[in-house]
């Protein structure tokens, strides 16, 4: 079978977010980059499905030239090939992102049995690119999946809900968005990294349509304004902690 997984390069923010002067992005001068943990689980799942059943896995991203780093990382984990839709780094809205992904899938002859996404992108969190792709291609779509098993021509999917799991069984081809917890992703090995350098990577440069969900600027939310009360140092702080718990009525 053929599996596609779509990932998005995002800055790896740490303890405090700093914005660029034009407020259009997070300042990344001191930051690395990554993809969403949800998408990492999608990549791991794609690799496992191909290891178990044969076929080919593809990773796709729409992002700046530097996003090749994330594609090579995913190929180091075991994905067979990559597609890079190269942008100038500006924000693409979810409609435009979905349309560009659909164009790739169509131009490759709609050959994917499973098209995987993260449940939501780490930065924008639009909760919709996958659903738009599914409708454009006329495919069923199940979201937020934490259990996936292929059985012949269909796939059984489990979604965590309050009080249990909802189960869906859909025929393939299908679109599925996954959540972290689906599996425990592996780390790339050194030989994996070497192999990844030689794996095929196709690039193209789509034109960005005018955004219809148009980002104007980023804003830092107001800080907590809290000044932590130091209860003490080391084990000697224990009585003060118990005092707080008692005050809160938790003992």
């Amino acid at each position, binding site marked *: 079978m053929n599996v596609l997984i779509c990932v998005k390069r995002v800055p790896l*923010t*740490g*303890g*405090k*977010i700093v914005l660029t002067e034009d407020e259009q992005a997070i300042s990344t001068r001191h930051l690395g980059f990554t993809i*969403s943990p*949800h998408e990492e689980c999608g990549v791991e799942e794609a690799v496992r499905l191909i290891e178990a059943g044969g076929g080919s896995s593809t990773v796709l991203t729409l992002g700046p030239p530097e996003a090749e780093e994330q594609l090579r990382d995913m190929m180091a984990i075991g994905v067979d090939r990559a597609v890079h839709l190269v942008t100038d780094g500006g924000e693409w*809205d979810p409609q435009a992102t*979905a349309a560009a992904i659909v164009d790739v899938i169509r131009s490759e002859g709609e050959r994917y049995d499973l098209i995987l996404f993260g449940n939501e992108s*780490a930065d*924008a*969190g*639009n*909760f919709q690119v996958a*659903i*738009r792709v599914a*409708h454009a291609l006329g495919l*069923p*779509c199940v*979201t*937020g999946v934490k259990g996936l098993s292929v059985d012949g021509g269909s796939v059984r999917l489990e979604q965590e*809900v309050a*009080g*249990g*799991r*909802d*189960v*869906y069984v859909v025929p393939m081809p299908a679109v599925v968005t996954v*959540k*972290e917890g689906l599996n*425990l992703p592996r780390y790339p090995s050194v030989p994996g990294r070497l192999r990844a350098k030689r794996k095929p990577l196709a690039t193209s440069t789509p034109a960005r349509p005018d955004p*219809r*969900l*148009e980002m*104007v*600027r*980023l*804003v830092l*939310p107001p800080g*907590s304004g*809290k000044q*932590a*009360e*130091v*209860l003490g*140092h*080391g*084990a*000697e*702080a*224990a*009585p003060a*902690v*118990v005092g*707080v*718990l008692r005050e*809160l*009525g*938790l*003992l």
Partner: protein
Amino acid sequence: MTVLVFVENIDDELSQQALTFARGLGDELHAVLIGAPAVPAGLAAYGVSIAHLAAGLDAYAPAAWAQAIVELVARTTPAAVMGPGTDRGNEVLAHIAAKTDQPMAANCMSIAAGDPASLVRVRWGGSLLEEARLHGSPMLLTVAPHAVAAEMVAEPADLVLEEFTPSVSNVDLIARVCERASAVSAGVSLTDADVVVSGGRGVGSAAGFAVIEELAELLGGAVGCSRAVTSAGWRPHTDQVGQTGTKISPEIYIACGISGATQHMAGCKGAKKLLAINPDGEASIFASADYAVIGDLHEVVPAISAEIRKARSA
């Protein structure tokens, strides 16, 4: 201006918040309910004047539920369609957006009508906000959890009920819930716990969690952890607190050996109080903490447990 709200569950605070938010935008509030067993009494209290009840769609099927709302929108031409910023709220609204090829804004904090509409929405699970313009009609959006507090109206109007039977195609019914497997519950759940004691990379190993578990048990609470811990395989992902883990709202969150990355804090913003235990006085978690203990968790946590035992036996 008419606003149509997809009400997932009127007894749920997030649906009540979505209705409260909607009243800030429109003066006529319609609700759409799908697969609801009975007409919930609470709708009028949150300002709904007309409730549209879709018949014949009991099992959850996101594309079919969206199709029902698309038909309703064609008939009632609301200026905005919104839902709660829950898994299903976001999913159903995204299907409506995809079917109608309109833009949709997830997890909005506020919106002002206009051409285009101006809104503020959350990014990074709430660690960052975005001002944006929405160029579509009707406005399609979901309401970020806790963007507003749920408020009832002073004088509820009489609720008018309108049942309708949407014409849903089989294609829209392919992805539907066909089975509900119930959870095997082990102890207090993270989402409901009054106390959550969480460990991060600073715990050092899977075995190191014994001290965290002991304290959680003494307090009748649940154990949580950071992503560094789940990635290392020390705890299952079901314990993870954060942007891609569970969002919690305990009376107190006790974070041990956690640095306070924005993605972790996105999951515990709902905690009423936060106590952080960390030897690094500069750790960013202290900027959001109410109480701080500077020190090694392997000394501090057992000392707290011993102190609780002492207090209880006294």
